[in-house]
């Protein structure tokens, strides 16, 4: 059982965050009327990216400690 679960979770959030943030930044802004004028894709994409960065950093630190 040598799997650090922070790695898959971090990677998944990185991919999803990049997709959301990218779409939020470059996509059609008129769709955000639904979300009360908030560009929720951009904001939440960035939040996911930040979470991913934390998880991956923790995971990398543990891998370093092990070796």
């Amino acid at each position, binding site marked *: *059982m*040598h*799997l650090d*679960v922070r790695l*898959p*979770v971090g*990677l*998944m*959030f990185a*991919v*999803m965050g990049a*997709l*959301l943030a990218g*779409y*939020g930044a470059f*996509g059609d802004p008129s*769709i*955000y009327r*639904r*979300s*009360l004028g*908030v560009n*929720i*894709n951009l904001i*939440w994409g960035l939040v*996911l990216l930040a*979470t991913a960065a934390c998880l991956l950093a923790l995971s990398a630190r543990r891998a370093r400690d092990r070796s």
Partner: protein
Amino acid sequence: MTLTWLDWLLMLVYFAFVIGVGVALRRSMKTTNDFFQAGRALPAWICGLAFLSANLGAQEIIGMAASGAKYGIATSHFYWVGAIPAMVFLGVFMMPFYYGSRARSVPEYLRLRFDEKTRGFNAISFALMTIFSSGISMYAMAKLLQILHVFDRPFAALGLEPSYIFHVCIIASALVVLVYVLLGGLSSAIYNEVLQFFLIVAGFLPLVYLGLRDVGGWTGIRAALPDSYTHIWRGLGTGTHPMGVDAFGVAMGLGFVLSFGYWCTDFLVVQRAMAADSMTAARRTPLIGAIPKMLFPFLVVLPGLIAVAATSGQPLNATNRAGSNHLRASGASASLGEARATFARAEADGRGLQVVTQSQSASESDLATRPVGVIPFKVDESSGRIMRDRDGRPQLDYDLAIPTLLLRYFPTGILGLGLTALLASFMSGMAGNVTAFNTVWTYDIYQAYLRPRASDAHYLWMGRMSTIFGIAASVLTAYVAAQFNNIMDVLQLVFAFVNAPLLATFLLGMFWKRATGHGAFAGLLTGTLAAALHHGLTLPVGAVAGVKGGWLGTWHTYPSEMAQNFWTATDAWTVCFVVTIVASLATRPRPDGELKGLVYSLTDRPRDDRTRWFLRPAVLGSFVLLGVTILNVVFF
């Protein structure tokens, strides 16, 4: 509302990762210990999050929001009274026996402590129950995704009828869970539960954020809804509270019998703690799970309140608020006359949402009796008509609270994430059931009664086979549920009867060395019978005798179904407790030597001196209880 490539891509990413986790673990599945117990090698925080996530099925999320919309913030009782204290008790007092006895499952503990018949009774009822509950939740999920109509257009593009959405949802989710459990067993289920936990939070948090923004935060909710919706204790049992249960009923029925019965004896959750890498980690598992659990009402109950506080058009102003404890008479009428979208049956062209205006569907005075917000009416599937209760009032489909909000606030992109979170919650619940089933089947039924002395490799093979069988049986159950809803209701009821007295058996088994096998078995049987009798003789107000109770006559009428449930459980517990004691005293006790490690008074206290002080189970448990007390006071 339709999905775009981005939503599909997000879902695909999720599928790729859950299967990827299974693939990464496939090489380490060498023995039954790896497959069924995750090698007992996982750290406490992983088990803790999995402990939480396995319980966090889609039905939990949908149901808690529905209950939030129906009963208000008092639904948090299911967390702050109905879960946290029991989780702390499990971690501090009960885990030493589960983990320390070397039992591989909860039924196996019963065999070690009592006897074969008590184990058999528990193993068989538990195995059946996991299959049924996973099938029923599969059915509910597929139904929901079909009603949402988000998949209509892609299916129409492929030339498939909307009814195929149901089949595809069931088969696809069953296959994904099958693949990752087959590959990586319990480890795979647990790791994915952690992944799903993060995803569920990531998917629903933005929903709460946007919802609160829309209704003006907690202040806005309080202004829009009657007082009883925003307090958890105040007004309970006064007759005006929508929950219809008094404080004693909540504390005893939910806070003690039901919650301890579930969290402390259900192998589905206990299995996660038993996979931990040490005794201290196993004891910390439910305590770590309790910390996010404590905050979950803000994620799953709050959307229900948002859904009833939100208005379809202009924001509600404070002057609309009716007198203190009265339901929102003027608030509801403020939104009357406006067209309200409801999820009606798709029209033949598969367009999706059909708009039913309120003037068409209900008279104004009917709706003024309870807050409705954006909750759609319940629509009969076959006729496309709005369903009404006995008094002819339209019924609200509270289960659609979360889906309605998803479609209301989420544009494409984040909508894909929200739907993925819903799928994730569904899969984590299903994998929880499947892994508990394959373990109990293989260890407690197959190895115990069918083929006792086979090789470990054979049982590993059986574990894989039972995974396939369990999932196939769940799929079958989902289709049976789709055909005969009543049979499922009856079965769920039977399981509730079987479960209700279990807690008394475990408490006496663990803390009273005099309890005997015959006593436990007699207590379980009579307790189950008592639950059935109590249910058969009582009825919630307004219900028709039958599956809701009263099938033997009506001795007592409860103000709500919830009150009836709480008292059925309390009744069963009491009978089991008393009968077990009496029957135990009448039978021969087991010698003390055989009960070492199984009973409190004959077991050495677990020592965890080496752990940092704040991570010791007792200290951590106290912090958790303090936190939950504060929450109870804040929302009193």
